[in-house]
């Protein structure tokens, strides 16, 4: 039988590099997050014109929308603008929605070339032969891309904060808005990164990223629109299907008894509870719907987590922004894991 012991093992006094200390020499979890790749990527992004161009692309339409709205409010209100409390909410909602749309457009553009670009530049192998783990490579790339996206959100903050000046928006709503924007950027950034690792070309990765983003952001609202059309055309009762959305918007004013009386509600309690949970999950999966329902919940002063009563039925309620956060953090973690796995598969 052949000797399988390596003759080289433990015999050569070869130099051993220390573990990768991470960006700025940080160790531990923070060091693993902020690795040299993140530093290099941020330097590269800031050095080129891309960040300036992207910031301009985001801020110009946002400023135009905000300016237009502000002018409308100022013209419509004969007295002090700051007293128009509901208009402030409308302003905030409109600006945040526009910003959300722009972030969804920018996130794939900023991330879909992260891995495929390395492959096309023929630098991926050079990274893979360093002691950086696949996960560190993915996280390093993502941190830099998200840094750019978060910078854009921060740059747009003064425009959003105009709503506080107009009135009707509190700090809580502003923070929830930022959270939704930040997590949307993170999740759809991870989508771009995943396709970038999964597909060989940046063009393909860009295409798949935009299709995924379009489905993720516009899919559910599109289905709702189709239901509305179907309810008119085929006599389907829309309110029987989308009552959880109505409940999330109206809170305690929602009612189930119109679907067959109190007895029917009691008989189908489990079904209605399941529909409520499923409805909340679906709404929380979509940034637009989660934003609208979160705003409604905050206005109504609903608690973050509670057991609410609809007619005689007890239904668990979780604030849409919290459920949205949990779902999107989970999705991001899964996408990062899948992306690292794609890099491992490249070895075979």
């Amino acid at each position: 039988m052949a000797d399988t012991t390596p003759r080289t093992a433990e015999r050569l006094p070869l130099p051993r590099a220390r573990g990768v200390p991470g960006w700025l020499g940080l160790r531990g979890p923070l060091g693993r997050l902020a690795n040299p790749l993140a530093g290099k990527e941020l330097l590269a992004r800031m050095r080129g014109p891309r960040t300036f161009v992207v910031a301009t692309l985001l801020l110009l339409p946002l400023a135009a929308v905000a300016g237009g709205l502000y002018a409308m409010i100022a013209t419509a209100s004969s007295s002090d603008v700051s007293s128009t409390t509901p208009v402030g909410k409308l302003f905030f909602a409109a600006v945040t929605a526009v910003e959300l749309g722009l972030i969804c457009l920018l996130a794939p553009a900023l991330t879909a070339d992260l891995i495929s670009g390395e492959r096309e530049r023929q630098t991926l192998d050079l990274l893979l032969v360093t002691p950086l783990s696949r996960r560190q490579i993915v996280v390093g790339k993502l941190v830099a891309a998200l840094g750019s996206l978060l910078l854009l959100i921060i740059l747009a903050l003064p425009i959003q904060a105009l709503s506080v000046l107009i009135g009707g928006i509190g700090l809580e709503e502003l923070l929830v808005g930022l959270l939704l924007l930040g997590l949307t950027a993170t999740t759809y950034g991870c989508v771009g990164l995943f396709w970038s690792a999964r597909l060989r070309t940046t063009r393909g990765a860009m295409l798949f990223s935009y299709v995924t983003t379009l489905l993720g952001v516009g899919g559910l609202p599109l289905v709702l629109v189709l239901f509305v059309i179907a309810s008119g055309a085929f006599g389907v009762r829309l309110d029987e299907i989308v009552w959880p959305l109505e409940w999330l918007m109206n809170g305690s004013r929602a009612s189930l008894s119109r679907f067959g009386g109190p007895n029917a509600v009691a008989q189908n309690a489990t079904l209605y509870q399941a529909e409520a949970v499923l409805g909340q999950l679906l709404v929380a999966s979509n940034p637009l719907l989660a934003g609208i329902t979160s705003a409604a919940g905050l206005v109504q002063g609903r608690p973050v987590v509670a057991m609410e009563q609809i007619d005689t039925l007890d239904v668990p309620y979780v604030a849409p922004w919290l459920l949205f956060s949990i779902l999107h953090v989970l999705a991001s973690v899964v996408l990062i894991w899948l992306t690292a796995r794609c890099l491992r598969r490249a070895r075979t």
Partner: protein
Amino acid sequence: MTGLALEARGLHKRFGSTVAVLDFSLGVPPGAIYGLIGPNGAGKTTSLRMLATLLEPDGGEAWVGGASIRADQAGVRRTLGYMPDFFGVYPELKAGEYLDFYAACHGVPAERRPAVTSDLLHLVDLSHKRDSYVQGLSRGMQQRLGLARALVHDPAVLLLDEPASGLDPRARMELREVVRELGRMGKAVVIASHILAELADLCTHIAIVDDGRVVTDGPVEEVTRRLHGGRSVRVQVLDEGERLRDMLLARPDVHAVQLEPDLTPQPPPYHGAPQSPRPLRRGDGERDTLGSPPPRAGDGLGEGDTPATVRFVLDGDERALRTLLAELVAAGLPIFAFGQDVGGLEDVFLRVTRRLGDERDDG
């Protein structure tokens, strides 16, 4: 020799129904410059990629600095410097930043990185390009920077895949000097190439790879002797090429004698004009032990002198070589160059691959 810096045993790799590497076995001692010679598609790059942990082998095992490429990939990457046959650039980085970035990726502490970067730029003679964007460097400079990148963590083993491809002769020579220096520093260097002249003047060891297998390997002279049945020697004389050939033919320990007409262009008559720089003669696959280029006008060669080259195979070791030289000089032959003909690598390679081809045809 206390151990091997790199050892591979029976590595094999298949892509679908195509066998890329069939049986790759190699032992590289520290300080050796090991040339992997083989035609395009022989499996050199695939073998190097397996050793660099970029490709999972289907079978076999290899150890780099004692770390297994299957079980301890992180250990391999710490010990190994890899330079692929292409140069990927980050267009937005400068040469100094490029090295600093890879040093950080390899875990070189931040306080040591400026010194490491400076030393490496100096080693590859790019100190003056520290603040130049990588994309703006010439191909030769980029290759040297790539070599510096592979050295940022002071690896004990270097894998260089076609390092001189696309370089002009001067850049090749500069790269060769750097690799030679690395060998002197005790690093084990494995160079894959299909250009024999690129390796002939550089390597201490060679492995001939064909059809995914290492056909033969070992120190250059040993492999040459093994396949030639002796040492390949080249002698250059003035005018008396035929007498030299006859003398050699009369010896029982010399065979395969060939008198070659010297194709060196004759210099123009000397009129006292300033001499242009001497044309490079190294890099043509020849390593001299006595004097380098043949004499020219102005170097002592008369207008009527005709240089001639005789190649032959000598049975015996260095002692036999020395004795032969002494006898030829004593016989009054006007020898101006005498040395082992490493250019015989080409011959060795052709013999081996031709033999394998014949075996395949017979089989």
